[in-house]
């Protein structure tokens, strides 16, 4: 089946090592109830991501060194599910594959994961809320990371589904980590429930896909097989319920997948878990919002890019959902007071841009955006965690300010690797990826394309505005920190700064990964966009129509001017002229309150869904069906009927003579036998 040359027995260890370590922790905590010494926890928990990263690096080197005809490495551990015989047989392997897409994601997850693990050592060291919290936290981190690697490396959709569910579980565990605090526990449950909605979409999509593929005679779940057999499927249609129009089958599957990705990556209707995610410890946020949950949605879409390339309706929906989320979340981020809240809405907004890219058929741009965003956001979270820790848990930006004097190193790192890149400083990865996405939007022929362009441009303005506002409030201006707290502030240890350095470096140099061809041509570098060229064979990118040079310049100018306008506005309002800010915010207080609460999404959900559901389940299901029908009629009624029957007749058979019963039994058996052999 697989050419021997393309086997890579190393692959299985990449996801299995962190998962095994998580299991080990789980056993010692849950079964033996005996936590380990901190040193042992750190060695084992941080060793697994390190080894995973090493393994990922070696496999990546092998992948790159492959001869031309091969573009993936495969590691089949065993046949996981086998059913049927002959032509109708179906089997899914417990197997891992490494192609360009999963290689990029694997390297991303392992590197960010390792940084988060190292960062968490110091961060969680101060956590005294729970006696076994230290080891438990690392257990959850390992689990989440291993699950994401399982998802990324899975060779087939079913194994990916397993990883998908585990990532959801990991997010739930990490968000609700301080479960003794009701709000944290609530946030965890909320994330879990929202994830389940998305899981439902994925499950429906998987089942429909499998059904459709078996219909065309290729019952497989492996990505390679699916892609090969997809051609026949792409044009299948069926009639809409009212018979008015024909719907593409792939569109329906695609919409289900969009639902799944929306829940994982916190896009508009299902975004409500992400603002609450800030409840989790900061290293967990850094992991969930960059490399695991948030990235998983985009990865799913890109992994099945061949499907979306053939599904116009799903792509359009995707682009619109992403673009709306990007703009709304960027606006909401601008109104936040909570430092981590800004970052959370920022994550939503950035992933919205990635969704827009996927919707426009620019899958490589989406992946580049996700990768760049992961490094930037991780650096920002590390910085935010450091700030919050040095302020002894304070998260409200109104009580910060002027930290540049106390935390110069942190400030420098956050500014160069986080704030400026995210804001889209020309020449940075954020600028390039934003450009690519905007170009893709220009090229595409989606309905309402111009509105998408305008919204994307507005997003750029607001992105620069909110992140610089956040930076000014925290590091510049006047200090609003309490005197008591201020006295104890100091730069964090090298254990914290180390991962931050790493992420900042990666974030700064990420721009080299996706250096646009447009600029490359101008300064004389062939094929400068190395990431896109690496990914090209795997992803079914939309054909890149040649745009006029004028348009390209216009797009670049709009990106740069977005950065300038947003940045200047933030500078004007928050450093130069705070009084104007007070006046402005006073005049639009209601609007600001709405923005700050994330447009009251939680309230809307509560009124539209939760209360009606509760009402129905209480009045109809509980009192009507459960108590009335099932308890009253079925259970008690049946019992009463039997009791009456037994009281009047059956009790007389109960003679108390065991062998009497035996005689009757044997008599009955004999009668049956005689009937059978008659």
């Amino acid at each position, binding site marked *: 089946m697989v050419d021997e040359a393309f086997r890579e027995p190393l692959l299985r260890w990449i996801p299995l090592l962190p998962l095994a370590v998580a299991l080990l922790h789980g056993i010692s905590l849950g079964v033996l109830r005996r936590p380990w010494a901190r040193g042992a926890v750190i060695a084992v928990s941080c060793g697994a991501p390190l080894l995973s990263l090493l393994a990922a690096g070696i496999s990546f080197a092998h992948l790159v060194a492959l001869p031309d005809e091969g573009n993936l490495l495969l590691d089949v551990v065993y046949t996981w599910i086998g059913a049927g015989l002959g032509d109708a047989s179906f089997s899914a392997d417990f197997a891992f594959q490494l192609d360009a897409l999963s290689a990029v994601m694997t390297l991303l997850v392992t590197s960010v994961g390792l940084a988060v693990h190292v960062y968490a050592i110091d961060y969680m060291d101060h956590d005294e809320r729970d006696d076994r919290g230290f080891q438990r936290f690392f257990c959850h981190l390992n689990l989440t990371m291993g699950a994401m690697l399982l998802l990324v490396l899975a060779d087939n959709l079913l194994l990916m589904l397993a990883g998908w569910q585990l990532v959801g579980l990991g997010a739930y565990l990490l968000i609700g980590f301080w479960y003794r605090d009701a709000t944290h526990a609530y946030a965890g449950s909320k994330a879990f429930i929202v994830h389940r909605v998305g899981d439902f979409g994925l499950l429906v999509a998987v089942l429909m896909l499998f059904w459709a593929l078996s219909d065309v005679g290729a019952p497989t779940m492996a990505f390679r097989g699916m892609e090969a057999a997809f051609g026949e499927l792409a044009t299948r249609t069926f009639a809409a319920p009212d018979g008015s129009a024909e719907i593409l089958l792939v569109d329906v599957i695609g919409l289900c997948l969009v639902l799944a990705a929306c829940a994982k990556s916190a896009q508009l209707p299902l975004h409500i878990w992400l603002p609450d995610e800030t409840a989790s410890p900061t290293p967990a946020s850094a992991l969930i919002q960059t490399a695991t949950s948030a990235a998983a949605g985009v990865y799913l879409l890109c992994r099945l890019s061949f499907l979306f390339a053939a599904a116009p309706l799903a792509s359009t929906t995707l682009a619109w959902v992403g673009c709306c989320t990007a703009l709304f979340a960027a606006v909401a981020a601008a109104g936040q007071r909570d430092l981590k809240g800004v970052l959370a809405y920022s994550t939503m907004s950035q992933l919205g841009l990635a969704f827009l890219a996927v919707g426009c058929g620019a899958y490589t741009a989406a992946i580049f955006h996700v990768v760049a965003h992961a490094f930037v956001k991780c650096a920002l979270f590390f910085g935010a965690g450091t700030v919050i820790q040095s302020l002894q848990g304070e998260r409200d930006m109104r009580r910060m300010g002027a930290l540049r004097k106390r935390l110069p190193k942190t400030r420098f790192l956050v500014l160069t690797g986080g704030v400026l890149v995210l804001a889209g400083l020309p020449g940075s990865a954020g600028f390039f990826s934003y450009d690519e996405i905007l170009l893709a939007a220009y090229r595409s022929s989606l309905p309402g394309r111009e509105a998408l362009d305008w919204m994307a441009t507005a997003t750029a303005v607001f992105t620069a505005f909110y992140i610089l506002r956040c930076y000014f409030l925290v590091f510049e201006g006047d200090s609003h920190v309490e005197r008591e707290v201020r006295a104890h502030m100091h730069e964090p240890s090298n254990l914290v700064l180390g991962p931050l350095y790493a992420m900042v470096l990666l974030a700064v140099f990420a721009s080299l990964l996706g250096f646009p061809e447009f600029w490359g041509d101008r300064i004389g570098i062939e094929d400068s966009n190395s990431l896109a060229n690496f990914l090209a064979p795997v992803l079914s990118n939309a054909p890149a129509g040649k745009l006029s040079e004028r348009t390209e310049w216009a797009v670049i100018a709009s990106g740069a001017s977005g950065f300038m306008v947003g940045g200047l506005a933030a500078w004007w309002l928050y450093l130069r002229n705070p009084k104007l800010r007070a006046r402005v915010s006073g005049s639009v207080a209601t609007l600001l309150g709405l923005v700050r609460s994330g447009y009251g999404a939680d309230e809307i959900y509560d009124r539209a869904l939760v209360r009606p559901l509760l009402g129905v389940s209480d009045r109809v299901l509980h009192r009507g069906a459960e108590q009335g029908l099932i308890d009253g009629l079925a259970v008690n009624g049946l019992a009463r009927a039997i009791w009456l029957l037994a009281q009047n007749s059956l009790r007389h058979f109960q003679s108390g003579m065991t062998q009497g019963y035996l005689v009757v039994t044997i008599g009955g058996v*004999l009668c049956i*036998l*005689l009937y059978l*052999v008659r």
Partner: protein
Amino acid sequence: MTLISAQVYLFYGFAGLAVLGALGSWLLVRNAMAAVMSLIVTVVSLSVLYVLMGAHAVAALQLLIQAGTALVLLLFVLLLVNPDPGGFGTRDPGQVVIQIIGAAAALAVGFVIAGTVSVTLPLPAEAAPGSGGFRELGVQLVTVYAVPVEAVGLLLLAAVVGAVVQTRQEGR
């Protein structure tokens, strides 16, 4: 004496032993130990018959599970409760007559059924015994018969739980 005919003689010999053992477990009521031992004779003879019919694996399992474990458990309980020789089975003359009549009737019915089965079923012609090794049996057990095996596992679990619950004394 060829091997085949030796097998035939062995078969009837151990068949007779099995019947004797069965009768013994019934008739040796005065001595509970002897009754159990004669049941063991039956079980062992049956496993010899299985070997002669080519079912080696079944024979081994029969010895291992039935004789090796289940009947030892029986002996263990027998030694624990220590029934007095008369208590194992009371017999009065009237009962003996009823027993003999019942046994004869049951035997008649049994043979009628067995005969009918053998005559009426569309049985294939006699064939040489095939394999009955562990590999074949094991493959069948974990593939085709996976569900029955799981069901038996559940039954055994239920039996264990039931046994523990029944024998647990109050207040312990």
